[in-house]
Protein backbone atom coordinates (compact mmCIF):
# COMPACT_ATOMS: atom_id res chain seq x y z
CA UNK A 1 0.00 0.00 0.00
CA UNK A 2 2.63 2.53 0.92
CA UNK A 3 4.36 2.07 -2.40
CA UNK A 4 1.04 2.33 -4.18
CA UNK A 5 0.40 5.49 -2.27
CA UNK A 6 3.86 6.68 -3.16
CA UNK A 7 3.24 5.77 -6.78
CA UNK A 8 0.00 7.57 -6.70
CA UNK A 9 1.64 10.63 -5.17
CA UNK A 10 4.33 10.42 -7.82
CA UNK A 11 1.74 10.22 -10.53
CA UNK A 12 -0.13 13.12 -9.00
CA UNK A 13 3.06 15.16 -8.72
CA UNK A 14 4.34 14.30 -12.20
CA UNK A 15 2.01 16.60 -14.13
CA UNK A 16 2.72 19.41 -11.66
CA UNK A 17 6.48 18.90 -12.01
CA UNK A 18 6.19 18.67 -15.77
CA UNK A 19 4.10 21.81 -15.81
CA UNK A 20 6.68 23.67 -13.73
CA UNK A 21 9.49 22.51 -16.02
CA UNK A 22 7.47 23.50 -19.07
CA UNK A 23 6.68 26.86 -17.55
CA UNK A 24 10.35 27.43 -16.80
CA UNK A 25 11.37 26.48 -20.32
CA UNK A 26 8.50 28.49 -21.79
CA UNK A 27 9.50 31.41 -19.61
CA UNK A 28 13.07 31.17 -20.84
CA UNK A 29 11.80 30.97 -24.39
CA UNK A 30 9.61 34.03 -23.89
CA UNK A 31 12.54 35.83 -22.29
CA UNK A 32 14.73 34.92 -25.25
CA UNK A 33 12.14 35.94 -27.83
CA UNK A 34 11.32 39.13 -25.96
CA UNK A 35 14.95 40.05 -25.65
CA UNK A 36 15.50 39.31 -29.29
CA UNK A 37 12.44 40.93 -30.74
CA UNK A 38 11.79 43.95 -28.56
CA UNK A 39 14.66 46.39 -28.80
CA UNK A 40 15.18 48.85 -25.98
CA UNK A 41 15.40 52.47 -27.12
CA UNK A 42 16.41 55.46 -25.04
CA UNK A 43 16.36 58.88 -26.72
CA UNK A 44 18.29 61.93 -25.62
CA UNK A 45 16.74 64.92 -27.39
CA UNK A 46 18.47 67.66 -25.41
CA UNK A 47 21.28 68.37 -27.86
CA UNK A 48 19.13 68.62 -30.98
CA UNK A 49 18.88 71.86 -32.89
CA UNK A 50 18.15 74.26 -34.42
CA UNK A 51 14.55 73.26 -33.75
CA UNK A 52 13.63 71.99 -30.32
CA UNK A 53 12.06 68.55 -30.18
CA UNK A 54 8.58 68.50 -28.70
CA UNK A 55 7.78 65.78 -26.15
CA UNK A 56 5.26 64.06 -28.41
CA UNK A 57 7.77 64.03 -31.26
CA UNK A 58 10.42 62.51 -28.98
CA UNK A 59 7.99 59.79 -27.93
CA UNK A 60 7.06 59.08 -31.54
CA UNK A 61 10.70 58.88 -32.59
CA UNK A 62 11.55 56.40 -29.81
CA UNK A 63 8.53 54.25 -30.52
CA UNK A 64 8.92 54.26 -34.30
CA UNK A 65 12.66 53.57 -34.08
CA UNK A 66 12.01 50.62 -31.77
CA UNK A 67 9.43 49.18 -34.18
CA UNK A 68 11.78 49.77 -37.10
CA UNK A 69 14.53 47.74 -35.48
CA UNK A 70 12.09 45.06 -34.41
CA UNK A 71 10.93 44.72 -38.00
CA UNK A 72 14.50 44.86 -39.27
CA UNK A 73 15.68 42.05 -37.00
CA UNK A 74 12.70 39.91 -37.94
CA UNK A 75 13.38 40.57 -41.62
CA UNK A 76 17.08 39.69 -41.35
CA UNK A 77 16.28 36.54 -39.40
CA UNK A 78 13.61 35.33 -41.81
CA UNK A 79 14.85 36.91 -45.06
CA UNK A 80 11.41 38.37 -45.57
CA UNK A 81 11.14 42.02 -46.50
CA UNK A 82 7.42 42.75 -46.24
CA UNK A 83 7.67 44.31 -42.76
CA UNK A 84 10.35 46.77 -43.83
CA UNK A 85 7.94 49.04 -45.71
CA UNK A 86 6.34 50.33 -42.53
CA UNK A 87 9.33 52.09 -41.01
CA UNK A 88 11.93 52.33 -43.78
CA UNK A 89 12.01 54.47 -46.90
CA UNK A 90 14.40 55.84 -49.49
CA UNK A 91 17.99 54.65 -49.42
CA UNK A 92 17.59 52.68 -46.19
CA UNK A 93 14.69 50.66 -47.58
CA UNK A 94 16.49 50.01 -50.85
CA UNK A 95 19.69 48.89 -49.10
CA UNK A 96 17.88 46.62 -46.69
CA UNK A 97 15.84 45.07 -49.48
CA UNK A 98 19.05 44.36 -51.33
CA UNK A 99 20.68 42.99 -48.18
CA UNK A 100 17.82 40.54 -47.72
CA UNK A 101 17.99 39.43 -51.34
CA UNK A 102 21.74 38.88 -50.96
CA UNK A 103 21.28 36.90 -47.75
CA UNK A 104 18.68 34.78 -49.50
CA UNK A 105 21.02 34.21 -52.45
CA UNK A 106 23.94 33.15 -50.26
CA UNK A 107 21.86 31.15 -47.77
CA UNK A 108 22.77 33.38 -44.85
CA UNK A 109 20.69 34.82 -42.03
CA UNK A 110 21.51 37.38 -39.36
CA UNK A 111 20.15 37.81 -35.88
CA UNK A 112 20.28 40.97 -33.80
CA UNK A 113 19.49 39.93 -30.24
CA UNK A 114 19.13 41.80 -26.95
CA UNK A 115 19.27 45.19 -28.61
CA UNK A 116 19.84 48.26 -26.48
CA UNK A 117 19.79 51.50 -28.47
CA UNK A 118 21.03 54.78 -27.03
CA UNK A 119 19.73 57.41 -29.45
CA UNK A 120 20.90 60.98 -29.48
CA UNK A 121 19.19 63.55 -31.68
CA UNK A 122 21.88 65.79 -33.16
CA UNK A 123 19.95 67.77 -35.77
CA UNK A 124 16.30 68.71 -36.16
CA UNK A 125 15.66 70.83 -39.25
CA UNK A 126 14.17 74.32 -38.82
CA UNK A 127 10.90 73.24 -40.43
CA UNK A 128 10.79 69.85 -38.69
CA UNK A 129 11.00 67.84 -41.87
CA UNK A 130 14.12 65.82 -41.12
CA UNK A 131 15.98 64.66 -38.04
CA UNK A 132 19.49 63.22 -37.69
CA UNK A 133 20.19 60.86 -34.83
CA UNK A 134 23.22 58.99 -33.57
CA UNK A 135 22.53 55.52 -32.29
CA UNK A 136 24.94 53.58 -30.10
CA UNK A 137 23.67 50.03 -30.08
CA UNK A 138 24.72 47.15 -27.89
CA UNK A 139 23.51 43.81 -29.14
CA UNK A 140 24.39 40.21 -29.84
CA UNK A 141 24.91 39.48 -33.52
CA UNK A 142 24.66 36.00 -34.91
CA UNK A 143 25.28 35.01 -38.51
CA UNK A 144 23.94 31.68 -39.68
CA UNK A 145 24.77 29.72 -42.79
CA UNK A 146 21.79 27.44 -43.14
CA UNK A 147 21.21 26.35 -39.55
CA UNK A 148 24.82 26.68 -38.45
CA UNK A 149 25.99 29.67 -36.45
CA UNK A 150 29.21 30.85 -38.08
CA UNK A 151 29.57 34.06 -36.11
CA UNK A 152 28.40 35.17 -32.68
CA UNK A 153 29.53 38.39 -31.07
CA UNK A 154 28.58 40.96 -28.50
CA UNK A 155 28.88 44.15 -30.49
CA UNK A 156 28.76 47.88 -29.90
CA UNK A 157 27.70 49.55 -33.14
CA UNK A 158 27.31 53.18 -34.12
CA UNK A 159 24.70 54.30 -36.62
CA UNK A 160 23.99 57.65 -38.22
CA UNK A 161 20.27 57.79 -38.83
CA UNK A 162 18.11 60.16 -40.89
CA UNK A 163 14.40 60.08 -40.16
CA UNK A 164 11.61 62.00 -41.84
CA UNK A 165 7.95 62.30 -40.91
CA UNK A 166 5.49 60.33 -43.01
CA UNK A 167 1.70 60.39 -42.78
CA UNK A 168 1.43 58.96 -39.28
CA UNK A 169 4.94 57.95 -38.26
CA UNK A 170 8.63 58.71 -38.55
CA UNK A 171 10.46 56.71 -41.19
CA UNK A 172 14.15 55.81 -41.38
CA UNK A 173 15.59 57.01 -44.68
CA UNK A 174 19.29 56.52 -43.95
CA UNK A 175 20.86 53.96 -41.64
CA UNK A 176 24.61 54.08 -41.93
CA UNK A 177 26.99 52.32 -39.58
CA UNK A 178 30.17 54.21 -38.72
CA UNK A 179 33.30 53.27 -36.84
CA UNK A 180 32.80 56.18 -34.46
CA UNK A 181 30.84 59.44 -34.37
Amino acid at each position, binding site marked *: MPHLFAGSLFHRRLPVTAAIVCLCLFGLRIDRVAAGSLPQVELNANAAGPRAIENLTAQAISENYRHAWQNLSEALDSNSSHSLDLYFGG*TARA*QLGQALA*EQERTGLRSRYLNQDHKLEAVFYAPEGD*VMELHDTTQCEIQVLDGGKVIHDEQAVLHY*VVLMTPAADRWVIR*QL*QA*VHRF
Partner: protein
Amino acid sequence: MAVICLAVIWPSNPCLAQTVELRVPTAVIAGSRATIATAGTGEATFYVIGPSHSVKRKVRLGQEIQLQPDEVRSAGRYLAILCLEVCQSADFYVTPGDAAGLSFLVHPSRVPVRQSESISGTVFPFDKFHNLLLAPVKVDFRLMAGDADLMSRSVTTQSGVAWFRTHSGKQAGSLQVVAVVKGLSVHRVVQQVASDPCDLRVRAQRTKKGISAETEPVRDCSGNPVPDGTIVSFSETDARGTSTVDAPIKQGVARAQMTASGPAVISAASGVVMGNELRLGAQP
Protein backbone atom coordinates in the same frame (compact mmCIF):
# COMPACT_ATOMS: atom_id res chain seq x y z
CA MET B 1 36.29 18.58 -29.88
CA ALA B 2 39.30 18.25 -27.61
CA VAL B 3 41.63 18.82 -30.52
CA ILE B 4 39.88 22.06 -31.40
CA CYS B 5 40.10 23.20 -27.79
CA LEU B 6 43.82 22.48 -27.70
CA ALA B 7 44.32 24.37 -30.88
CA VAL B 8 42.61 27.34 -29.36
CA ILE B 9 44.35 27.41 -25.99
CA TRP B 10 47.81 26.25 -27.11
CA PRO B 11 49.01 28.14 -30.14
CA SER B 12 52.07 25.99 -30.71
CA ASN B 13 49.94 22.90 -31.08
CA PRO B 14 50.47 21.21 -34.46
CA CYS B 15 46.73 21.43 -34.98
CA LEU B 16 47.18 25.17 -35.46
CA ALA B 17 47.49 24.41 -39.15
CA GLN B 18 43.75 23.81 -39.07
CA THR B 19 43.06 27.35 -37.95
CA VAL B 20 42.61 30.28 -40.27
CA GLU B 21 43.52 33.93 -40.13
CA LEU B 22 42.30 36.93 -42.02
CA ARG B 23 43.42 40.54 -42.13
CA VAL B 24 40.91 43.14 -43.25
CA PRO B 25 41.71 46.60 -44.65
CA THR B 26 41.71 49.52 -42.26
CA ALA B 27 39.91 51.90 -44.62
CA VAL B 28 37.88 51.29 -47.74
CA ILE B 29 36.20 53.94 -49.87
CA ALA B 30 32.77 52.99 -51.17
CA GLY B 31 32.92 51.58 -54.68
CA SER B 32 36.66 50.81 -54.65
CA ARG B 33 38.44 47.48 -54.60
CA ALA B 34 39.28 45.96 -51.24
CA THR B 35 41.76 43.25 -50.42
CA ILE B 36 41.56 40.82 -47.54
CA ALA B 37 44.62 38.77 -46.69
CA THR B 38 44.38 35.20 -45.39
CA ALA B 39 46.84 32.86 -43.75
CA GLY B 40 46.82 29.11 -43.45
CA THR B 41 46.62 26.19 -45.85
CA GLY B 42 43.77 24.50 -47.59
CA GLU B 43 40.43 25.66 -48.82
CA ALA B 44 38.03 27.62 -46.64
CA THR B 45 34.65 29.28 -46.92
CA PHE B 46 34.75 33.04 -46.99
CA TYR B 47 31.82 35.27 -46.15
CA VAL B 48 31.26 39.01 -46.17
CA ILE B 49 28.08 40.51 -44.79
CA GLY B 50 27.67 44.20 -45.55
CA PRO B 51 24.85 46.76 -45.40
CA SER B 52 23.50 45.72 -48.80
CA HIS B 53 25.69 42.92 -50.05
CA SER B 54 26.63 39.40 -48.98
CA VAL B 55 29.41 37.23 -50.29
CA LYS B 56 29.95 33.50 -49.88
CA ARG B 57 32.71 31.77 -51.78
CA LYS B 58 35.39 29.15 -51.48
CA VAL B 59 38.89 30.55 -51.13
CA ARG B 60 42.38 29.12 -50.98
CA LEU B 61 44.06 30.09 -47.73
CA GLY B 62 47.27 32.05 -47.98
CA GLN B 63 45.97 33.98 -50.96
CA GLU B 64 44.46 37.42 -51.01
CA ILE B 65 40.73 37.79 -51.47
CA GLN B 66 39.60 40.61 -53.73
CA LEU B 67 36.31 42.36 -53.11
CA GLN B 68 34.99 44.03 -56.26
CA PRO B 69 33.82 47.67 -56.24
CA ASP B 70 30.20 46.53 -56.58
CA GLU B 71 30.53 44.47 -53.42
CA VAL B 72 31.46 47.45 -51.23
CA ARG B 73 29.22 50.21 -52.56
CA SER B 74 27.33 50.89 -49.35
CA ALA B 75 29.06 52.72 -46.54
CA GLY B 76 28.93 50.98 -43.20
CA ARG B 77 30.17 47.95 -41.33
CA TYR B 78 31.29 44.83 -43.16
CA LEU B 79 31.81 41.57 -41.36
CA ALA B 80 34.32 39.19 -42.94
CA ILE B 81 34.19 35.56 -41.81
CA LEU B 82 36.53 32.78 -42.79
CA CYS B 83 35.58 29.22 -41.86
CA LEU B 84 37.63 26.04 -42.01
CA GLU B 85 36.99 23.88 -38.97
CA VAL B 86 36.48 26.94 -36.89
CA CYS B 87 35.50 30.40 -38.03
CA GLN B 88 37.48 33.60 -37.67
CA SER B 89 35.92 36.97 -38.19
CA ALA B 90 36.92 40.61 -38.46
CA ASP B 91 35.06 43.74 -39.32
CA PHE B 92 35.95 46.78 -41.37
CA TYR B 93 34.20 49.98 -42.31
CA VAL B 94 33.52 51.38 -45.75
CA THR B 95 33.37 55.17 -45.89
CA PRO B 96 31.58 57.34 -48.49
CA GLY B 97 33.32 58.61 -51.61
CA ASP B 98 33.21 62.16 -53.01
CA ALA B 99 30.05 64.23 -53.11
CA ALA B 100 27.93 63.38 -56.12
CA GLY B 101 24.50 64.57 -55.06
CA LEU B 102 22.88 66.95 -52.63
CA SER B 103 19.63 66.57 -50.81
CA PHE B 104 18.53 70.21 -50.48
CA LEU B 105 15.37 71.03 -48.54
CA VAL B 106 14.17 74.64 -48.71
CA HIS B 107 11.16 76.10 -46.94
CA PRO B 108 8.71 77.67 -47.53
CA SER B 109 7.75 77.64 -51.20
CA ARG B 110 5.96 81.00 -50.83
CA VAL B 111 6.94 83.68 -48.39
CA PRO B 112 5.86 87.27 -47.77
CA VAL B 113 8.58 89.88 -48.30
CA ARG B 114 10.49 91.34 -45.34
CA GLN B 115 9.81 88.44 -42.99
CA SER B 116 12.43 87.81 -40.37
CA GLU B 117 14.15 84.37 -40.39
CA SER B 118 11.47 83.08 -42.72
CA ILE B 119 13.51 81.09 -45.26
CA SER B 120 15.51 78.02 -44.29
CA GLY B 121 17.52 75.46 -46.19
CA THR B 122 19.13 72.16 -45.21
CA VAL B 123 21.72 70.22 -47.21
CA PHE B 124 22.83 66.61 -46.89
CA PRO B 125 25.66 65.68 -49.27
CA PHE B 126 25.74 62.13 -50.66
CA ASP B 127 28.20 60.17 -52.77
CA LYS B 128 27.17 58.43 -55.98
CA PHE B 129 25.98 55.38 -54.04
CA HIS B 130 23.69 57.48 -51.80
CA ASN B 131 26.00 57.22 -48.81
CA LEU B 132 25.83 60.22 -46.49
CA LEU B 133 29.10 62.17 -46.38
CA LEU B 134 29.98 62.55 -42.73
CA ALA B 135 33.38 64.21 -43.12
CA PRO B 136 33.16 68.02 -43.06
CA VAL B 137 32.24 69.50 -46.46
CA LYS B 138 31.97 73.19 -47.30
CA VAL B 139 28.56 74.18 -48.66
CA ASP B 140 28.07 77.58 -50.33
CA PHE B 141 24.56 78.94 -50.03
CA ARG B 142 23.40 81.78 -52.29
CA LEU B 143 20.06 83.56 -52.47
CA MET B 144 19.43 85.68 -55.57
CA ALA B 145 16.45 87.81 -56.50
CA GLY B 146 16.91 88.70 -60.16
CA ASP B 147 20.50 89.81 -60.48
CA ALA B 148 20.81 90.92 -56.87
CA ASP B 149 22.51 88.74 -54.28
CA LEU B 150 20.41 88.64 -51.14
CA MET B 151 22.67 86.33 -49.19
CA SER B 152 25.91 84.44 -49.68
CA ARG B 153 27.14 82.18 -46.92
CA SER B 154 29.56 79.26 -46.55
CA VAL B 155 28.67 76.61 -44.04
CA THR B 156 30.70 73.50 -43.23
CA THR B 157 28.70 70.35 -42.65
CA GLN B 158 28.66 68.86 -39.19
CA SER B 159 27.68 65.21 -38.94
CA GLY B 160 26.69 65.32 -42.60
CA VAL B 161 24.39 68.34 -42.52
CA ALA B 162 24.63 72.08 -43.23
CA TRP B 163 21.79 74.55 -42.92
CA PHE B 164 20.91 78.25 -42.98
CA ARG B 165 18.06 80.50 -42.02
CA THR B 166 17.57 84.02 -43.34
CA HIS B 167 15.11 86.86 -43.98
CA SER B 168 13.06 87.22 -47.11
CA GLY B 169 13.88 90.07 -49.52
CA LYS B 170 12.06 93.31 -50.21
CA GLN B 171 10.74 92.63 -53.70
CA ALA B 172 8.06 90.19 -54.71
CA GLY B 173 9.08 87.63 -57.31
CA SER B 174 11.15 84.49 -57.67
CA LEU B 175 14.00 83.93 -55.27
CA GLN B 176 16.70 81.53 -56.47
CA VAL B 177 18.21 79.50 -53.65
CA VAL B 178 21.39 77.66 -54.57
CA ALA B 179 23.60 75.22 -52.66
CA VAL B 180 27.04 74.43 -54.08
CA VAL B 181 29.46 71.70 -53.00
CA LYS B 182 32.68 71.36 -55.01
CA GLY B 183 31.13 72.55 -58.25
CA LEU B 184 28.00 70.53 -57.70
CA SER B 185 25.01 72.87 -57.44
CA VAL B 186 21.35 72.39 -56.67
CA HIS B 187 18.73 75.11 -57.25
CA ARG B 188 15.45 75.72 -55.52
CA VAL B 189 12.93 78.54 -56.07
CA VAL B 190 11.00 80.39 -53.39
CA GLN B 191 8.21 82.70 -54.48
CA GLN B 192 8.31 85.96 -52.58
CA VAL B 193 4.90 87.58 -52.39
CA ALA B 194 3.72 90.97 -51.14
CA SER B 195 3.28 91.26 -47.44
CA ASP B 196 0.24 92.78 -45.67
CA PRO B 197 -1.18 95.98 -47.22
CA CYS B 198 0.41 99.14 -45.96
CA ASP B 199 -1.26 102.55 -45.70
CA LEU B 200 -4.63 101.39 -47.04
CA ARG B 201 -6.39 104.42 -48.55
CA VAL B 202 -10.07 104.42 -49.41
CA ARG B 203 -12.19 106.94 -51.29
CA ALA B 204 -15.97 107.03 -51.64
CA GLN B 205 -18.69 109.01 -53.34
CA ARG B 206 -22.42 109.09 -53.36
CA THR B 207 -24.20 107.59 -56.34
CA LYS B 208 -27.85 107.17 -57.23
CA LYS B 209 -27.83 103.74 -55.64
CA GLY B 210 -25.98 104.66 -52.46
CA ILE B 211 -22.25 104.87 -51.85
CA SER B 212 -19.50 103.66 -54.16
CA ALA B 213 -16.22 103.02 -52.34
CA GLU B 214 -12.86 101.90 -53.67
CA THR B 215 -9.32 101.69 -52.50
CA GLU B 216 -6.30 103.27 -54.03
CA PRO B 217 -3.93 100.65 -55.50
CA VAL B 218 -3.16 98.37 -52.56
CA ARG B 219 0.53 97.82 -51.87
CA ASP B 220 2.62 96.48 -49.05
CA CYS B 221 5.14 98.59 -47.18
CA SER B 222 7.84 97.77 -49.75
CA GLY B 223 5.66 98.98 -52.61
CA ASN B 224 4.77 95.53 -53.96
CA PRO B 225 1.21 95.23 -55.28
CA VAL B 226 -0.86 93.06 -53.00
CA PRO B 227 -2.06 90.01 -55.00
CA ASP B 228 -5.46 90.05 -56.64
CA GLY B 229 -8.01 88.11 -54.64
CA THR B 230 -6.86 89.53 -51.31
CA ILE B 231 -10.00 90.52 -49.42
CA VAL B 232 -10.68 94.11 -48.35
CA SER B 233 -13.56 94.66 -45.92
CA PHE B 234 -15.48 97.92 -46.36
CA SER B 235 -17.59 99.10 -43.42
CA GLU B 236 -20.35 101.65 -43.49
CA THR B 237 -21.70 103.03 -40.23
CA ASP B 238 -24.79 105.18 -40.08
CA ALA B 239 -27.75 105.76 -37.74
CA ARG B 240 -29.05 102.24 -38.48
CA GLY B 241 -25.84 100.54 -37.48
CA THR B 242 -22.86 99.04 -39.29
CA SER B 243 -22.86 97.00 -42.47
CA THR B 244 -19.82 95.32 -44.01
CA VAL B 245 -19.00 94.32 -47.56
CA ASP B 246 -16.04 92.05 -48.40
CA ALA B 247 -14.52 92.67 -51.81
CA PRO B 248 -11.51 91.01 -53.47
CA ILE B 249 -8.77 93.11 -54.96
CA LYS B 250 -8.95 93.13 -58.78
CA GLN B 251 -6.09 94.63 -60.72
CA GLY B 252 -4.75 96.20 -57.55
CA VAL B 253 -7.98 97.86 -56.42
CA ALA B 254 -10.95 96.70 -54.35
CA ARG B 255 -14.41 98.16 -54.95
CA ALA B 256 -17.73 97.99 -53.08
CA GLN B 257 -21.23 99.36 -53.48
CA MET B 258 -23.16 100.16 -50.31
CA THR B 259 -26.70 101.38 -49.69
CA ALA B 260 -26.92 104.37 -47.33
CA SER B 261 -28.88 107.56 -47.68
CA GLY B 262 -28.08 109.38 -44.42
CA PRO B 263 -24.74 110.56 -43.08
CA ALA B 264 -22.27 107.67 -42.97
CA VAL B 265 -18.72 106.81 -42.00
CA ILE B 266 -16.84 104.60 -44.49
CA SER B 267 -13.75 102.65 -43.59
CA ALA B 268 -11.75 99.72 -44.98
CA ALA B 269 -9.51 97.01 -43.59
CA SER B 270 -7.47 94.15 -44.98
CA GLY B 271 -6.03 91.50 -42.69
CA VAL B 272 -4.74 93.36 -39.66
CA VAL B 273 -4.38 96.67 -41.47
CA MET B 274 -6.94 99.46 -41.05
CA GLY B 275 -7.44 102.13 -43.70
CA ASN B 276 -8.57 105.72 -43.36
CA GLU B 277 -12.10 106.81 -42.37
CA LEU B 278 -14.34 108.93 -44.65
CA ARG B 279 -17.36 110.90 -43.46
CA LEU B 280 -20.08 111.40 -46.06
CA GLY B 281 -23.06 113.69 -45.58
CA ALA B 282 -26.65 112.75 -46.28
CA GLN B 283 -27.84 112.25 -49.83
CA PRO B 284 -29.03 115.61 -51.22
